[in-house]
């Protein structure tokens, strides 16, 4: 089928198999490989992207379901050569170790801050329950989200 999906503000229109997963459309068809595939079972959150501004796991959606909708990936966060505040804060607070979970962590964090611009550390932890960091670098990830929300890092 032909799908029309806006990705990072750019219209894409491609012929795909009906069973194509959104994450494979993003990575293999459109060629944006910032979005990782981790567990492939809706658990780890590495493949998190925004669908119409809300976080979703792109391994558990069909490209067909995103037809007519807008997707934002990690490549779409920064603009005009400037890092997004969440990207800047992850760098400042060292909110990553190996980096594999980072794109998903940042997209889940952006979705959280859209809904709750001033979360507490506990609320950040709860909001990132669907994103796993196998380096267990959670402390600095939570600090990065606090920093991105212009709050005291240590609450």
């Amino acid at each position, binding site marked *: 089928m032909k799908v029309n999906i806006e990705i990072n503000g750019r219209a894409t229109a491609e012929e795909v198999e*009906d069973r194509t997963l959104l994450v494979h459309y993003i990575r293999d068809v459109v060629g944006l490989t910032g979005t990782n595939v981790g567990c492939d079972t809706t658990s780890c959150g590495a493949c998190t992207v925004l669908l119409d501004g809300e976080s*979703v796991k792109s391994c*558990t*959606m069909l490209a067909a379901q995103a037809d007519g909708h807008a997707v934002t990936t990690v490549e779409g966060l920064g603009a005009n050569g400037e890092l997004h505040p969440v990207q800047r804060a992850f760098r400042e607070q060292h909110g990553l170790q190996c980096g594999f979970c980072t794109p998903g962590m940042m997209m889940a964090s952006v979705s959280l801050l859209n809904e709750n611009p001033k979360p507490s550390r506990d609320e950040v932890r709860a909001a990132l329950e669907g994103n796993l960091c196998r380096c267990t670098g959670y402390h600095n990830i939570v600090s990065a989200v606090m920093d991105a929300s212009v709050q005291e890092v240590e609450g």
Partner: protein
Amino acid sequence: MIPAAFTYRRASTVDEALALLAQHGDDAKLLAGGHSLLPLMKLRFAAPEILIDMADVADLRYVRLDGDRVRIGALTRYHDLQHDGILLEHARLVAHAAGVVGDPQIRHRGTIGGSVAHADPAADVPAALLASDATLVIAGPSGSREVPIGGFFQGPFTTTLGADELLTEIVVPSKASQGWGFEKFTRRAIDWAIVGVAAVGGSVALINMAGTPIRAKAVEAALADGASIEDAAALTAEGTSPVDEAHAGAEYRKHLARVLTARALEQVAGRIPAGLA
């Protein structure tokens, strides 16, 4: 993992979805949020030939107060339920249960109707609806029928929903004046409940203690007779048949059910603020 090949169709109305179901019968499956069905298809446990996406049927996404009842469209997402002002006043148990399903990403996609129709005995929302005496509205080729949720579940992933029918609405009596409690025990944050309890007023429903969500009838009868929370909760395992497997044995699950029921009943009584445990 990639699903077996299928044909994707999008229905724009309930009638269009019913017509597609009538045409394709058992070869077709309805797709709501897809967070139960797509994982099963990726594992090839399910391989429908036709997938009917309900996402464009926007008029099945609502929460409305109708007298002393709350009407919930089947395609309303967990995320919308957990923040809905009407539910927070009239059916806090349902709003709370929706807010503890999976994780935020899952709650942005998963729907109340999808969860009920999927009928996983470990699911949170169906038990909350069972404790709330919900009624289901089901559309079919010959019109609409209503069934009490207690008569809907037949076994794991099995319901009385016909292959040519679809769930359109969940109706919950207002419980604005009643205390509520909810407890579940999971191995990791986003796991399915090993055991859970949903309680409102004198009604208690158990998650994952049988092939379907079930009411803890012995507990309810004891409460009605004026028993203490401790004495009533001790009866929780009566009539249950939990699975016995590596993560948790049946006796352990029965123990958990008694403990969690006591906690949920303390929340109902207001001695522990609900939702904080």
